[in-house]
C-alpha cells in the first residue's frame, strides 16, 4: 500500500516533468541547445549545495543557480568566446564547485548520487505540486510564445522583419530550460535532465511533419518513457533517472528503422508527400 502510494506519486511527478520536457526539448534540438541544457543541469548541483547550506527547498536552490547560469550564458554569449567553450567552462566549473561545496559544508547523510541520477523515494506531495506547477507554467509559456519562438528559431533576420526580437525569444527558452532543470532534478538527476529533453524530441522527428506534431509526439514519448521507466525502476530497484533515459533511448533506437524507411520513401516520392 505504501509502495503503491509512492509509485503513484513518483509516476505523477515523472509524467508531469515529461509532458513539459517533450515540447521544450524540440526547441533544444532545433536550436542545438543540448550543451546549454547540460550546463544548466550541472549548475543545479551547486544549487543543491546552496539549498542544503541555507536550508531552503532543493527546487528553489536549483532554480536559482540554473537561472543564474542561463542569464550568465545569455549575457556572455557573442562576446569573443565560442559558445561551446563558454558552456564547457560554466558546466564543469559549476559541477565541480557544487560537489566541493556539498563535501565542505559537510551536510551529513547527503547522498550526492540522488541528485546526480535522481531518486524516486525523494518525491513527496509538495514536490508533485512544484513539478505540476512548473510544468504548467512551462507549457503555458511555450503555447503563448509558440509562433514567435518558432519564427526566431527559423531565422533571426526573419524574426526581426516581423517585429519579433530573437534575443528575447532565446532568453525565454534558456529560462524555460532552467525551470525544467529545477523541477526535474529530484526525479531524473542533474546528469540526465538533458537526455529527457533531447531523446523524445529526436525520436519524434522520425515521423513528425509539423513542429506542433513533433512537440505533441515528444510529450507523449517522454511521458511514456517516464511511466515505464519508473515502473521498471520500482520493479528492479534501479535509479530512476538512468532507467527512464534507458527506456527513452530504446524508443529512439526503435525509431531509427522507421526514420530510414520514411527517408527512402520520401526520396521516391511515395510517403513524404
Amino acid at each position: 500500500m505504501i509502495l503503491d502510494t509512492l509509485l503513484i506519486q513518483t509516476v505523477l511527478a515523472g509524467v508531469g516533468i515529461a509532458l513539459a520536457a517533450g515540447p521544450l526539448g524540440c526547441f533544444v534540438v532545433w536550436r542545438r541547445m543540448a550543451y546549454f541544457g547540460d550546463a544548466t543541469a550541472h549548475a543545479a548541483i551547486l544549487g543543491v549545495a546552496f539549498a542544503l547550506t541555507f536550508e531552503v527547498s532543493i527546487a528553489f536552490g536549483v532554480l536559482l543557480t540554473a537561472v543564474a547560469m542561463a542569464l550568465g550564458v545569455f549575457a556572455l554569449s557573442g562576446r569573443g568566446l565560442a559558445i561551446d567553450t563558454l558552456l564547457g567552462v560554466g558546466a564543469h566549473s559549476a559541477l565541480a564547485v557544487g560537489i566541493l561545496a556539498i563535501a565542505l559544508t559537510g551536510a551529513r547523510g547527503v547522498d550526492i548520487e540522488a541528485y546526480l541520477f535522481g531518486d524516486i523515494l525523494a518525491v513527496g506531495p509538495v514536490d508533485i505540486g512544484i513539478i505540476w506547477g512548473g510544468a504548467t507554467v512551462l507549457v503555458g509559456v511555450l503555447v503563448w510564445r509558440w509562433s514567435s519562438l518558432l519564427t526566431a528559431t527559423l531565422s533571426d533576420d526573419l524574426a526581426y522583419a516581423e517585429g519579433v526580437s530573437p534575443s528575447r525569444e532565446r532568453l525565454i527558452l534558456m529560462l524555460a530550460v532552467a525551470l525544467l532543470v529545477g523541477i526535474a532534478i529530484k526525479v531524473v538527476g542533474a546528469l540526465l535532465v538533458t537526455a529527457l529533453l533531447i531523446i523524445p524530441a529526436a525520436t519524434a522527428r522520425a515521423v513528425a511533419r509539423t513542429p506542433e506534431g513533433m512537440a505533441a509526439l515528444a510529450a507523449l514519448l517522454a511521458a511514456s518513457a517516464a511511466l515505464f521507466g519508473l515502473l521498471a525502476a520500482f520493479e528492479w530497484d534501479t535509479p530512476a533517472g538512468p532507467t527512464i533515459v534507458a527506456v527513452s533511448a530504446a524508443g529512439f533506437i526503435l525509431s531509427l528503422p522507421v526514420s530510414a524507411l520514411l527517408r527512402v520513401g520520401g526520396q521516391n516520392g511515395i510517403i513524404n508527400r
Partner: protein
Amino acid sequence: MPRLQYSIEMSLLAAHNLAVRLDGRTILSGVDFSIQAGEIVTVVGPNGSGKSTFMRALIGALTPSSGQVTRRNNLKIGYVPQRLHIDPTLPITVARFLNLPVRRPNSAIAATLDEVGLPDIATQQMTTLSGGQFQRVLLARALLASPDILVLDEPTQGLDQPGIAAFYRLIDAVRGRLGCAVLMVSHDLHVVMSASDRVICINGHICCEGAPTAVSSAPEYQEMFGLGTQGALALYQHAHDHNHEGCTHGEAAE
C-alpha cells in the same frame, strides 16, 4: 542629380547618416537613403561591401552605431532573406511555414502559392524543395503580409540563369499587382539594372547612385566592377530592347 532629392517625410523607409559597426569594424558609414512608394531600387556592390548589413539595418536586425532609420508608420515589410537554413531536425510543411508568425487563411495561401507558380506544394516539407522553389516560397511568405515594400537580399543566389530570369519576372509581376516598392540587393547586375528606377552602388558608403544607365557609366561603378560587367550589361540591354517593339537598341550595345 536633383531627382534624387526626396523628402524623408514622403518616403516609406529612410536612413539618415547611417553608420554600422560590427566587432569594432566600421562596415557602413554616412549612408543617406530613402525609398518611395512603388519605387524599384537595386543595391549593388562587391562582396563584403556592406550590402547585407545595409538591408539588416533597414529591417531592424542591426542597431546603427550612429544615424537613424525611419519607417513610415505601420509600414509592412515583406522580407526575403539571402538564404534560410532550416535545421533538418525541424519538420515543417510549406503551409505551416507560410503561417509564421501570423496565421493566414487557407485561401490566401493557396492563391499566393499559385501566384509564385507553386500550386500543390502546400503539404510538402520545406527541406525537400529545390533552390528555386525555396526562394519562391520565401517570396510567397513575404507577399502574404500584403507588404508596402519588398526587401530582397540577393534572392537569386544559388539559382541557375533561367531560374534567375524567372524569379525576376515573377517579382516584376507581383510588383505590378501589389504596387509595392522593391528594394533589392543583387549580384545579377545585367538582369536587374535596367528594371530598376534607381541603382545604389555601395562599398562601405554610397559610391554613386542614379538611374541604371547613369550608374553603369559612372567612374566609381566602373572602377568597382571593371569592364567584364559592362559587357554583360550591354548584353542584357540589347536583349531587353528586343522585347519591346519600337525601342531603339541600347546605347551600351552599340
